[in-house]
């Protein structure tokens, strides 16, 4: 389904759509307020953007530094060109450990690679340990937001789900009660898992360490209880120096949820004695995106989700309307690079209002890239359909006489036609909107009469 169809469906439940909009607006508003308590906020964004420019310009050498230093620290480093290779590498490690049950903390990358269904097919039980992710996993849904995976669900729905899956009291919607039930359930899974998988927020080239940020401490709990830690990292997550974290950690939490700091910023450098630590560096379309001059900036993204919270489209159509792993504005500039045909409606799911670019902590020019993707996508459309009508319009606009004739025709037609014809079902504008009243003359005609 296309984005417009999905959005129309989402908006049918007006009360829920309004709630969704207001809930995410609340997060954005919180982000606005806390960002304004940092006088150097705009400077931080600029520095972060420049650090990422540097990373993207020298990605190859930073990755080699990172690999070398990580290996020195005793981490096993693997490279995956795509999702399949990544999934196979994970499975190989699990099979070597005879492991059939793992815990995983939030990782958009593993969603992108569709790791869960792959492992399940091979008999591995995967438990997502982030509360929101566990909720959507129970429902067999993907996350609808990269930071707030279950933001599309209301308390009551979670209460019903937990009653069914975790046997909580029916109708008890108390968040502490429900969270406690999840803790007890997850504790058992943590204790049994021999392997823990985490994502990576930042990989530090100079030290070979990596940082994982969670609010629930679930990454730490998983890793410290397991014998083997597998960290899955997109190759663009590199930062050159440890001190760069000072810039990014300040921006990340504030942009994501309006918190001053993420609860757990855990640094992983080397495995504990007797344990194993693996890191899988994944490309999966990233170098292809890096080669696209107009779109490579999208790789600066630190996955804070601020562009989703601010986007008037996302807030009113929900994450699933995008049909891509990363939804919202940033997803709409990343996804066409992976599959342009499948995601062809996404760059058009925007008014180009520019809020995403202004909110972005690393200053990605998101709305400009949406505009550029539109130019690319229409090249694949045929001469007919939209292309043809647009060419006709260009014919009209470059010729003043043709413009005048068609303008006059349009205005007189609008004056003469009955409303039933103007507001017929094919006139999408008129479905829920009136047309402006038609004036008797255009400004050009008025000017000629009165001023020349």
């Amino acid at each position: 389904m296309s984005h417009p169809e999905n959005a129309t469906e989402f908006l049918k439940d007006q009360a829920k759509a309004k709630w969704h909009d207001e809930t995410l607006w609340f997060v954005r508003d919180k982000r606005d307020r806390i960002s304004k308590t940092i006088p150097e906020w705009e400077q931080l964004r600029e520095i972060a953007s420049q650090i990422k420019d540097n990373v993207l310009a020298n990605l190859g050498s930073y990755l080699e530094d990172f690999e070398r230093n990580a290996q020195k620290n005793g981490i096993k480093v693997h490279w995956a060109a795509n999702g399949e290779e990544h999934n196979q590498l994970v499975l190989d490690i699990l099979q070597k450990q005879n492991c059939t049950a793992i815990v995983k903390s939030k990782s958009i990358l593993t969603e992108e690679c569709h790791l869960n269904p792959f492992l399940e097919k091979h008999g591995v039980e995967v438990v997502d340990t982030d509360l929101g992710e566990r909720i959507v996993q129970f429902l067999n849904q993907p996350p609808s937001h990269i930071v707030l995976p279950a933001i599309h669900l209301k308390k009551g729905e979670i209460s019903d789900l937990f009653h069914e899956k975790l046997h909580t009291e029916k109708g008890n919607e108390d968040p502490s009660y429900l969270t406690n039930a999840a803790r007890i359930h997850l504790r058992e899974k943590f204790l049994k898992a021999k392997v823990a998988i985490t994502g990576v927020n930042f990989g530090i080239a100079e030290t070979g360490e990596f940082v994982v940020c969670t609010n629930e401490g679930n990454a730490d709990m998983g890793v410290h209880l397991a014998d083997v830690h597998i960290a899955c990292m997109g190759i663009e997550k590199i930062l050159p120096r440890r001190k760069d974290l000072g810039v990014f950690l300040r921006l990340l939490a504030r942009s994501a949820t309006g918190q001053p700091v993420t609860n757990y910023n855990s640094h992983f450098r080397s495995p504990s004695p007797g344990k194993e630590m693996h890191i899988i560096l994944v490309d999966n379309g990233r170098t292809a995106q890096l080669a696209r001059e107009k779109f490579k900036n999208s790789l600066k993204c630190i996955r804070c989700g601020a562009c989703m919270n601010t986007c008037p489209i996302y807030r009113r159509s929900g994450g699933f309307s995008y049909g891509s792993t990363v939804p919202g504005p940033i997803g709409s500039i990343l996804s066409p690079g992976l599959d342009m045909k499948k995601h062809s409606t996404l760059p058009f799911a925007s008014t180009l209002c520019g809020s995403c670019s202004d909110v972005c902590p690393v200053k990605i020019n998101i709305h400009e890239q949406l505009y550029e993707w539109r130019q690319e996508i229409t090249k694949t459309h045929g001469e007919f359909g939209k292309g043809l009508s647009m060419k006709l319009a260009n014919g009209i606009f470059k010729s003043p006489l043709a413009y005048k004739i068609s303008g006059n025709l349009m205005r007189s037609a609008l004056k003469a036609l009955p409303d039933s014809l103007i507001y017929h079902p094919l006139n999408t504008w008129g479905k829920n909107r009136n047309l402006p009243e038609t004036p008797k003359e255009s400004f050009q005609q008025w000017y000629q009469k009165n001023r020349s």
Partner: protein
Amino acid sequence: MKSDSPHIALFIPCYVDQFYPKVGIASLELLEKLGCKVTFPSGQTCCGQPLANAGYERDTIGTTRHFIELFKPFDYVVAPSGSCVLHIKEHSPQIPGLENEQAELHHKVYELTEFITDVLKVEKLEGKFPHRVGFHASCHGQRGLRLASSSELNQTPFNKARKLLENLEGLEWVELSRTDECCGFGGTFAVTEEALSVRMGKDRLEDHLSHKTEILTGGDMSCIMHLQGIATRNNQTLKFLHIAEILNEAIS
């Protein structure tokens, strides 16, 4: 008016020309009242924005060439639309053979309120407009041309339109809950994403209505056409005026 004063071309966007001639007239009269020498060059069509935003920038070469040729002789080009001005500056394709003229044009084309505050250096407008006015900041004007500070950025608040409006005697400025959220017009978006577009428009109207806006104004008639279309359909009693109409009426 001095004879050596700069010659200003009035650029009237196509839909304003066709549907809102009053906005064109108000813009012209307003600039004249402020002492400008203004001409409306005949033969204007459209800037090409609808095509470019729909993904067909490459098909606007003819339109853009015509635009440059038409406005080349003037010192300034002023339009009562932030959106069309942004398009000219950022999204019109490079025209071979007219590189210099095009670069010059990008520096001399202004949205109406920024022309008044930044070029004419008007600090304060004397006039009277005893109404409760709600301002709709068009995104292209606000975040594109930076006609006002944006709520996402940590910057000193400013708003060029507000500067012109707020000194008018009797005018009450309406503070909104969401000062700069998009109205959902978005050009072809209004039709291709109809459901979302209308929902966004309704939400903007609710914000204005709950804060007792009497007259909703803005610098872009396209946003206002969309909002007005929804309000009229739902019998909401709001008046809609372009900011040029308010300023022109107030200082007469």
